[in-house]
């Protein structure tokens, strides 16, 4: 397992470089690399906007693990209890002109990964997202 630790949202770039390099090493497709970059951006933005962003010593650890044909991204932070999977998603029926423009991050995370699990342990938020490679 490999991981990076972030202390602010502006460390997105270095996280993406880490992810790109690992995924290329795993020989996964360009489309899967794309999907996981979107997911990582959503979670980093979300984590530092809620919980972690308020704290002086807030951190977010992002890990990547491969088991057979499943890639797991694990997001662990020391912010206030916050389950991003329980956020309200916006309704996306109708034309763009008539609907809100925000609230799409969680929909993307759920659509671009196959399994999502949240739990709270040792004062940390832990979110595990799995992507099947088949």
């Amino acid at each position, binding site marked *: 397992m490999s991981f990076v630790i972030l202390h602010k*949202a502006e460390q997105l770039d270095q996280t993406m470089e880490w992810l790109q390099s690992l995924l290329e090493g795993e020989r996964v497709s360009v489309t899967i690399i794309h999907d996981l970059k979107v997911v990582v951006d*959503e979670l980093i933005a979300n984590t530092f906007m809620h919980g972690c962003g308020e704290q002086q010593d807030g951190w977010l650890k992002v890990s990547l693990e491969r088991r057979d044909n499943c890639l797991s991204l694990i997001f662990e932070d020391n912010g206030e209890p916050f389950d991003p999977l329980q956020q309200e998603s916006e309704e996306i029926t109708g034309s763009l002109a008539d609907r809100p*423009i925000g609230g799409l991050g969680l929909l993307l995370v759920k659509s671009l990964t196959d399994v999502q699990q949240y739990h709270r342990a040792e004062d940390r938020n832990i979110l595990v997202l799995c992507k099947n490679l088949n």
Partner: protein
Amino acid sequence: MPLDIDIQTPSPETLRVVLGGALDSQTSLALDQALDAAVKADCQLLAFDMGNLEYISSAGLRVVFKNVKRIKKNGGRVGVSRMNAGVRKVFEIVQAIPDLDIFASVEEMDDYLAVLHTRAMQND
């Protein structure tokens, strides 16, 4: 990864926005500000060339949708060309494709821009 933004005005009522790199939570503000400055009330077509755009997340979608709303309110249209498979998937997930004119190539989009420009000239 930075976001490259090149805004061109091929005709008075048309804006072409060529994007490259990553349109995400760190870069979307730059595009938001660039479009706020460039999109005028009489803009009838906003054409995004996404050929060099590696990925787009919800922060980027928010900026695109804000401008779709703005242009459509004035009866205009928004075109997108050369989306990669991942970018297209994101637009499909949020069900935005029906609101956009999708072009496979820049040439196809340019032909369309030319037709719209001719129509606009005839109507003047």
